[in-house]
């Protein structure tokens, strides 16, 4: 998927609840590219434009798992605190 499409996906999937500053995606993509978590290659988009298509790599998948599990732990923690304060 290329950068523009990614922005669209994020907007749609979160039902416009997550308003990401579009541009901030790109430095993030570059950093992930440098760290080797994604790979990119130039291709053609559906609108016949020359775009860079990103693909997650195995190392990236591992990093994703790590980040997702730590995020979930954080959510659990928050939920517990919120839960106890309510009761």
């Amino acid at each position, binding site marked *: 998927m290329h950068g523009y499409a990614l*922005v669209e996906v994020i907007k749609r999937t979160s039902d416009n609840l997550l308003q990401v500053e579009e541009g901030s995606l790109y430095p993030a993509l570059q950093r992930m590219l440098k760290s080797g978590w994604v790979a990119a290659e130039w291709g053609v988009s559906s609108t016949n434009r020359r775009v860079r298509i990103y693909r997650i790599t195995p190392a990236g998948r591992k990093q994703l798992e790590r980040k997702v599990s730590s995020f979930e732990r954080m959510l659990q923690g928050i939920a517990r605190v919120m839960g106890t304060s309510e009761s």
Partner: protein
Amino acid sequence: MRILRYLLRRRISQQEAAAEIEGHLDERATELMDAGIPELEARAQASREFGNLALLTEESRAVWGWTRLEAMILDFRLALRGLRKNPGFALTAILTLGVGIGASTAVFTVVDSVILKPLAYEQSAKLVAVWEHAAAIGGEAVGPNPRHVDVWSQRANAFSGLTSFSQGVRGVSPGAESPRPVGLVVCQPNLFQVLRTVPRLGRDFRADDGKTGGPAVAILTHAAWQGLFSGDPGVIGRVIRVDDMPREVVGVLPEGFHFPNGNTLRSFRSVEIKKGVPEPWVFVPTVFDYAQMEWNGNYGNWVTLGRLADGFSMSAATAQLKGIQEQLRQQIPGGGNQKPGSLSASLQSLQEAMVGDSGQGIWLLMAAVGGLLLLACLNLANAQLGRAVSSARDAAVRAALGAARWRLLWSVLIENVVLSGMGGALGIVLAYVGLKLFRTHSPIDLPRLAEVELNPGALLFCMAITIAAGIVAGLLPGVRFASAAPHGSLQQASTRTLGSRNSHRVRVWLIGAQVFGCTVLLLITGLFSRSLLHLLQQDKGFETERAAIAEARLLSKHFGDAVARVRLIDGVLAALRSSAEVESAAYFSAMPLEGESWIEFARRPERQGENVPMVNARWVSPGYFEAIRQKLVAGRFFEERDRELSNVIVSEGEARALWGAENPIGGQLNALGKTFTVIGVVGDSRSTSVKRAPARMIYVHYGYRTPSQTFFIARGTHGAETLPALMRQVISAQSPHVFVARTKTLNAQLNDSLARERFQTFVLIAFGASALLLAMLGIYGVLSYSVAARKQEIGLRMALGASRSSVYALTMREAGFPVAGGLAAGLAVSFWIVRLIDKFLYGAKAVDLPVIASVVLLFASAATAAAFFPARHAASANPMDALRPD
């Protein structure tokens, strides 16, 4: 691995990132246009939604770049551009730094090669020079009596080897050609064993080489092998003629071997340094016949080296030696009458013996050069401060835009580092050239001169001071830059006061410091110059104008007999006197102004047991005193009839010492193994050295025991320039077995004997002038900047009625304060410093009013000149221009 690849494709990655973002914007805009929004509006909206385009693009690129390094490189190129725009400043700065760094490196190389580097012998720290002290000849350190050395080598276990040698210049030729003067060392066969040097070709001396009647051999140095035999690989076994005596070459020394020349290890430590003594090329062995040597005498003819045995320190060895000397004193004839301790010995590390004298001078030079470099850096810093301030707004804007402090500091520092880097490169070139010139045309005879060459240590030193210079010069302005409060600078118009009062005060103090250093330097220079002048102009007791001297070497095979020598002398004198260019000519037995020699005891026969001072004995021909213009105090000069008579002429000092107020004429004198009658008294002369009090002399006619040392003096009718060549011609014409070792005008000899003092003074004058120039530039710089800064204030004053002269006064007063302060401080410190250098000065006192007055005057006029132009610029400014707002 992937990272590596990406880092290599860095540039491409950055371009791709930028292209990507563009594509995104394009796509969004298209989408909006499809929804019906006009193109311009669509693009604007897409941009807005994207965020801070510039910042995000930068961030994306930054992921791929080494931003720090790139920033530094950018600043570097910026600095180069800035310098290119200011070629005048850049050129002066590079030149100043280049000269300063080059001089420092050159002097440091000399210091390193001559003083610091250990001698090129194996375990050279164990090598010592051994000196004897005999109360009978004054008690100072002299070369020992070889007979005593023989006793030491038998009784002292503190030394693993002792060896004696003497040096001179002899006529040497590889074949039947005419001889050339070459440095020769006559040594005991164990010399190279003590030095632990093994000849590269052939063999070392054997224990019986040099025995009288045995085979005559010689060992050559590498340079001699190249110079005399053109590096012939079959040189071993070839014949070399020394003093017309054939000797077989049995060995050649390795290339890195250096033996000190006759100047460096002198058998009488106090003797003057001769100029132009060549490095020894030929070594000739001799075996001492101790039975023929006297116990009480033969001092100062040989130099003795020793190698300390393992486990013995210098002090332990000295103590042992002193003990042996005491035993010796009691055993030798007449020694028992002398006091205990009247025969003693001392040791000196060989390195110190070789360089000790020049050590001080060289360190002085190093300090002077260091000071000059510091002055140059301070000047550069000052100039940079001025330039930095004018671009202070630049820095303020950059700081306001978010530049990091290190970035600002770096951008100033890099310019100075670039300047000093180029200055350093120039400096190395200058140092190389300078050292080359110094080696070939050295104004003074430095020990180990041949070992002076640009080595890696010196290059490292050069790099270190280059970087240090850059940092010193850039630090002050850099720190100011980095702490620039953008708010204040941005608020001011450009014509108002630039920079804070603080920076101005710093610059004023810098000026004061420069003036201080300069004053001290100039004062010392003045004193040295006066000292030199005094030496040259004082009454020497003889005249050097229009005279020339020549030294002739008589080959001993043909002139071993005194009669032959006398015949030669007579022949030369007759030929010289018949020339129209020569007013008077004479023979004498020792080179003038090369210290005391032929030191003898001279006593009145009726006062046998008296303790008398030593005298210098000289053999002269009639006409000598007239030729050299010494005064006749009493009696008469030598005449032709004195040839057969036993007459002596004494110097004033000797007459006073022995006869007091009585008339010495007609009195008797025991000297040189004979009783003489005094027929004349001549005035004291400083013919041995102009730096000391006149020595006591006795003169005898050359007919008595004519020595082999042969010198001629000729006084010209018109001038002395043609005399040396004439004398050479006449002397060589007398006999093919005579060669002229050297010939020069007497004035040249006087100058050569003062070579060290002249060199010191020359160096000091050069430094003083450079320092003064730098100080002037500094004053000029500070004042012009200050005038520019105060343009509005001055304009206001003039509009309100101030006269031009008062504006002059206003400007120059600014310079006056630091200059006056620096001068006063400099003078105060000088009084103290002069006490330290007292022993280098002759006849000049510490508080020398004319010198002080001239230094103050010089500085005052220099400062005025430097301040004049900015002042004039200020006074001639149009008040309206100054008052007009930015």
